[in-house]
């Protein structure tokens, strides 16, 4: 690894802790970001010469805090900066001091940093963009590219999100157990959003966006901070399981390959094994949660060596548990898939039909409904459902997949007419 690449990795991995501490000092996202940027610039200058500090995060916090304070003073009094030597000659004793100052807080610092990104006033896309910019340190260009918008538009979106967060006030009191659990839940949901943005990007050329890997890194970070939270184990396991199928999800032409048709030898065993251990760990706590159950469902798919060996009975039961915990038409729709495998298309269709009103704008509703009708030989109704699905497809791969179904239905209809 080149020196620059090494420093870049050290800065990336220290970022959440350092940004979290700087946000606590300055109580302002922009100021904390500027201070961190300045500390990074100095690291790039200092570390190659003097060697890496023992604790990069503590070093960055110390240098960032000093440079941030200078900025504040400079703006307040319009006075020149103090000489560089005063700040840049940092010894390990000072790093230790910064470490002591911050060690006690660092868990809540990082949680707060993640928490400000999931403010309820922010739409999902802004939460995702803000987290990737502030916590992960992805460049605006990288984020813009993944969202298929211009850099300027993304810059504006992030600026607006920061303004909204700032206006709402960042919570600086140390949270009590209840507030911490609430924050943790919201942060877990936000990390899942980040993952899904990458996962549902749809085509392999967009699947290489760093969102999925980044979400997994954030989930692992959260689990390091809260090692006994079964839902965070569930979240991490769920993301690992979804990500393990990355290489199998698209064919050479970029078309979607359905779970049941995927080449399971392409699944990443290391990620699956890690997820299975996390699920085992979570189960020991005996406090089921929505993320744990979703992970357990994904694990049943991962454990099946072939699609035919999938334990649909268990999956149906897990979806029923999930429905009790978190009733939603989308969960019911997913359960219908398990039911169709267990009891056939008719039983599944009976579950799906009552969802028509709530899910009329949902691609997967029409896709699944069309599929079930097709299995039942009700081709003209299937055709209609697929037509609706294709109109709601958000990626070319989704549309192409439905197109295949439509072609098949049309062939059957033509054959029936003869």
């Amino acid at each position, binding site marked *: 690894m080149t020196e620059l690449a090494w420093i870049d990795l050290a800065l990336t991995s220290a970022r959440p802790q350092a940004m979290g501490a700087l946000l606590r000092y300055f109580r302002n996202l922009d100021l904390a970001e500027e201070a961190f940027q300045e500390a990074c610039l100095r690291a790039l200058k200092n570390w190659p010469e003097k060697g890496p500090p023992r604790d990069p995060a503590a070093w960055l916090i110390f240098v960032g805090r000093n440079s941030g304070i200078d900025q504040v003073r400079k703006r307040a009094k319009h006075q020149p900066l103090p000489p560089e030597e005063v700040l840049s000659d940092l010894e390990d004793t000072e790093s230790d001091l910064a470490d002591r100052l911050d060690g006690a807080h660092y868990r809540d610092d990082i949680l707060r940093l993640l928490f400000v990104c999931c403010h309820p006033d922010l739409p999902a896309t802004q939460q995702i963009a803000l987290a990737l910019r502030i916590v992960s340190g992805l460049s605006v260009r990288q984020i813009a590219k993944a969202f298929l918008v211009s850099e300027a538009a993304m810059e504006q979106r992030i600026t607006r999100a920061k303004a909204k967060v700032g206006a709402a006030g960042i919570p600086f009191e140390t949270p009590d157990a209840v507030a911490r659990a609430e924050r943790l839940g919201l942060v877990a949901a936000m990390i899942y959003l980040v993952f899904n943005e990458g996962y549902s990007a749809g085509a392999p050329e967009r699947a290489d966006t760093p969102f999925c890997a980044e979400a997994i890194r954030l989930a692992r970070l959260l689990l390091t901070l809260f090692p006994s939270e079964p839902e965070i184990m569930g979240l*991490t396991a769920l993301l690992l399981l979804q990500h393990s199928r990355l290489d199998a999800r698209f064919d050479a032409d970029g078309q979607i390959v359905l779970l049941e048709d995927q080449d399971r030898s392409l699944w990443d065993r290391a990620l699956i094994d*890690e997820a299975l251990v996390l699920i085992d*760990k979570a189960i020991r706590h005996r406090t089921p949660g929505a993320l744990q159950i979703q992970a357990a469902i994904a694990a049943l798919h991962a454990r099946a060596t072939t699609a035919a060996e999938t334990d649909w009975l268990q999956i149906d039961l897990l979806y029923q548990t999930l429905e009790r915990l978190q009733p939603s038409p989308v969960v019911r729709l997913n359960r219908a898939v398990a039911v169709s495998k267990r009891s056939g298309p008719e039983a599944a269709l009976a579950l799906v039909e009552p969802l028509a009103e709530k899910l009329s704008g949902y691609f997967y509703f029409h896709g699944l409904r069309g599929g079930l009708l097709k299995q039942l030989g009700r081709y003209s109704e299937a055709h209609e459902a697929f037509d609706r699905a294709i109109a709601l497809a958000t990626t070319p791969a989704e549309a192409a997949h439905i197109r295949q179904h439509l072609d098949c239905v049309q062939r059957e209809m033509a054959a029936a007419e003869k």
Partner: protein
Amino acid sequence: MLYAVLCYDCESEINAWSKELDDKVMADLGAVNQRYAEAGKLGPVARLMPTTAAVTVRKGATDDIIMDGPFAETKEQFLGFFVLEAATLDEAITFARELSAANPANGTYEIRPLQFFNPGVPIT
């Protein structure tokens, strides 16, 4: 003489590696291993899963204490390890508790699943 060579690094940095970098590091390490394996000198090689997958078993006043996460104290030293094939985490925990019961000292047993394992060549 047999030697164990242990690898230490900052996990949050390793977690920030791209898949390409991780694969390359494993391949480069594998090339070094290969030479020693061909000379009949290399025993088992293992890479542990992230510490987030760890569970730690410690003796308590009345019963064993089983904690999520890795062993975090620094006043103890790393003394030895076992590699066990277990179908479930609970089975591994049972094994660790038996070890703990058989050991009069108050040591801790950290259970870390393996991400990569190469049994190596027979060595004496």
